[in-house]
């Protein structure tokens, strides 16, 4: 039990065959008490959630709800080994996300025809995809944009590595090929398994990340539109999003989506609300840019999953619509600047500065913390965090109202992941090496999400460029939502063997090299 960073053998907390770890870390009096207080807060959030009978009813109805038993452990996984400001930044983010997801679940069950069946409430709900910018909802303050896929699959897999397996199997039982991306596959599986809440006045789907995602939506809309009677608008964001000659199309899609929502909910677009949200989006962008700027120095502060998971949530799902995230942005920036001024480090030694590229393994989101603790590799930034930095128009003028449509279109086109996996090789291949230089990185960790065709299709050229630049590149293969294909240890082994054989290094914390977390949540 140690106060100092890196003094604990973090691998000793794991127990063979167990879902959970043996105990929580002792981080010194102040940090342990802080962590404890945040744990209490999470317990209160969960407590508030379960006192409502409808939520208990939902707990027994939806299989994916069982994963929410593991909420505190998800936080523990991401705070492993962290102290001081890093621990506080992580809690600021994680606790806010938990709060947000709890509200999302509560709202879903309130309007769900099977559970709360609050029709009046449901009529003010617009369903959105999990992988979709919610920019078109920025001007509808009286409507609720709810995603069913976020809690049923996306968050579930963060909580429990095996969460999606049941739904993947269901989809495959119905004849879906096993080689498609398991994320839309699981989302389709939830729909097929009749395990999605039935709610909403209408739904906005998007051709978000990939072909699989687009087609998976087709499975979901089949049931939504033809059986549940919930009209669906498919928002088609252009794939070649950097080209000028697609922007008018993208803007018109936004106009059409807004008109669709107005038609089916009876609500009117509110420009005041939109520009308020736009200000918050800009503030989030400004903060993210500051964090990234710090990460270019020898003392990075907001990085790894602290950066990745928060950006995914704040940039895409929140999109300026929730004021609490602005407050969190401010706090995180303050903590980061504080630590930066003191030249603080999150691990006892920084050996490598890495850019993490590609699509991370969702069932092992805390891998970035592991990289740091086990090998001293600092994940400076990741592909999913390198999103739009464009500032939106925020003043309500006639010109800006027109500009706002293009801003929303731009955001939608530049949703996380798709802004890199689509739009030509420049955004995926060329810009990686630009970031390597900008961040002064000496290593590239390249996730190879094996069923992500857009990434796999650049495999050889990534390697060739790495050779040309003389930058060590390590492939880390995984199957996004399915640890049965490549386990967490399988993921770690790829780094372990690279670090030992190619880099000829020994780990900072050898107890983390092999972990018995195969059965773990």
């Amino acid at each position, binding site marked *: 039990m140690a106060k100092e960073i890196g003094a604990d053998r973090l691998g000793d907390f794991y127990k063979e065959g167990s879902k959970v770890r043996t105990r929580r870390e002792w981080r010194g009096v102040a940090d342990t008490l802080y962590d404890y207080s945040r744990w209490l807060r999470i317990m209160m959030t969960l407590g508030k959630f379960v006192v409502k009978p409808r939520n208990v009813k939902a707990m027994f109805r939806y299989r994916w709800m069982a994963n929410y038993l593991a909420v505190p452990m998800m936080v523990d996984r991401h705070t492993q080994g962290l102290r001081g400001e890093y621990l506080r930044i992580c809690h600021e983010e994680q606790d806010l996300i938990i709060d947000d997801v709890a509200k999302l679940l509560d709202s879903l069950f309130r309007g769900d025809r099977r559970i709360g069946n609050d029709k009046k409430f449901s009529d003010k709900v617009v369903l959105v995809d999990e992988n979709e910018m919610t920019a078109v909802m920025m001007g509808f303050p009286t409507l609720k944009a709810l995603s069913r896929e976020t809690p049923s699959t996306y968050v579930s897999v963060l909580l429990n590595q095996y969460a999606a397996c049941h739904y993947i199997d269901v989809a495959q039982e119905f004849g879906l090929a096993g080689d*498609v991306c398991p994320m839309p596959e699981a989302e389709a599986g939830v729909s097929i398994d009749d395990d999605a809440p039935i709610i909403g006045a209408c739904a906005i789907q998007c*051709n978000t990340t990939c*072909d699989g995602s687009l087609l998976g939506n087709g499975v979901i809309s089949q049931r939504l539109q033809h059986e549940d009677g919930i009209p669906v608008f498919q928002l088609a964001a252009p794939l070649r999003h950097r080209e000028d000659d697609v922007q008018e199309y993208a803007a018109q899609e936004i106009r059409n989506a807004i008109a669709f929502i107005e038609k089916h909910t009876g609500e009117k677009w509110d420009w005041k609300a939109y520009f308020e949200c736009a200000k918050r989006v800009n503030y989030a962008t400004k903060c993210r840019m500051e964090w990234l700027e710090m990460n270019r120095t020898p003392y990075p502060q907001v990085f790894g999953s602290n950066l990745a998971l928060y950006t995914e949530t704040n940039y895409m799902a929140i999109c300026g619509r929730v004021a609490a995230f602005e407050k969190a942005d401010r706090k995180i920036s303050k903590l980061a600047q504080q630590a930066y001024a003191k030249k603080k480090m999150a691990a006892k030694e920084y050996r490598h500065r890495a850019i993490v590229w590609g699509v991370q393994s969702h069932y092992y989101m805390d891998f970035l913390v592991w990289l740091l603790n086990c090998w001293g590799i600092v994940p400076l930034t990741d592909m999913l965090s390198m999103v739009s930095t464009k500032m939106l128009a925020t003043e309500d003028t006639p010109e800006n109202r027109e500009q706002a449509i293009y801003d929303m279109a731009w955001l939608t086109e530049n949703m996380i992941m798709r802004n890199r996996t*689509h739009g030509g090789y420049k955004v995926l291949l060329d810009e990686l090496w630009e970031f390597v230089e900008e961040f002064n990185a000496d290593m590239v960790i390249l996730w190879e999400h*094996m069923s992500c065709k857009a990434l796999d299709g650049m495999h050889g050229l990534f390697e060739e460029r790495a050779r040309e630049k003389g930058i060590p590149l390590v492939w880390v293969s995984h199957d996004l939502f399915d640890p049965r294909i490549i386990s967490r240890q399988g993921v770690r082994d790829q780094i372990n063997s690279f670090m030992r054989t190619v880099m000829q290094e020994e780990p900072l914390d050898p107890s983390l090299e092999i972990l018995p977390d195969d059965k773990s949540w």
Partner: protein
Amino acid sequence: MKDLKHLIYFENLLLEANNELVQKAQAEGKVCVAYTCENTPEPLLNLEGCFSARLRAPRTGSLDISTYYMTSFLCEYSRALLERAIEGGYNFADCVITPDGCSMMNRCIENMELLKTMGKDKEKFFFQYMEVPMKADDNGLNLYVLQCKNHILNPLHETFGIDISDAAIRKAVAEFNETCELIRAIGDFRKEDNPRITGYEFNVITLATYVAPKYLLIDKLKETLEELKTREPDEKSRFRARVLVAGSEVDDTDFVKLIEDAGAYVCADRFCYGSLPGRDPIILNDEEDALTQICRIYMNKGECPRFMNTDKMDHRRVYVDQLAKEYKADGIIYQQMKFCDPWAYEKMMGTTILRNKYGYPVLAVDRPYSIGTSGQMVTRVQAFVESIEIKKIHNKGVANG
């Protein structure tokens, strides 16, 4: 049946991407526009002075190098094309025009470009990437028209001096329609109870129209149609069932041959590179410009699963049902090239809906790019044919009380 006079000629055209007619057209000074996706409006690639060649990789062998560049998780079609490009098999092309139809094809072409596999000694060579709509609506149409102008017509005009006027486009459509009408007329013989053309023969002829300059094929197509008018089918058909083949890209005639050798007559071809709806004539009016009309027709007839609006999705299954009725199919084979994401989903949806809602016997298979004589596939088709026969016997029994 007596062999078709020009069948071997058509077959030979399929043996090489750079086939005899491609060479002949280029020798005449025409520009060869290579393309890969059915969402590229073909008549626009066949304006006066240029012709289209849809890329294939016949007689594909090892995919080692393309697998290195794109991993084994991409579909074999995209890998086979890249492999052939790396081997220098597409050096004849004067330009490549491709939409981001699917991620895999996009990456395939990007690899071709980055690896500088094409355009050697061709100063004017270019790659053009298009954005094509994913929904059939007015906004999609505007996009389609603009993209065709920016990525097909203007580059062809500016680089090769091709006439891209409305009159030139209308002329290209007329020529395109001539081919389509011939293919349609030949294909209509498949509706007969004892057809005078096999699915394989028809597949070979149709495929030739995608990979060779159409204007050089017209005579042979006309002769073939005339020949078919008097061709006598075998007295007793060797086929035990009629099937419609739907699904992803098929440019391998062995696949259709394999199905027919297993006893199922391929009466309709609703797949990418097939004739339905790929060889539907384009009917233009005089009121609106030709380009807009072509784009609208392509957008509305497109059966590619990348179209994501509900009406289009539903129509994909309605269309298969219509064709199955029109061509009197006893069953449907939904095929999908392994690792094809769009068709992986569409195959599942189509199979389930056609079976449960429309009541067809449906076989769902995935396959490699080159099927050869796959024993597994033969067994599956044979079993499917038997199941159709059993169903027929059962239905007859029910009908007889």
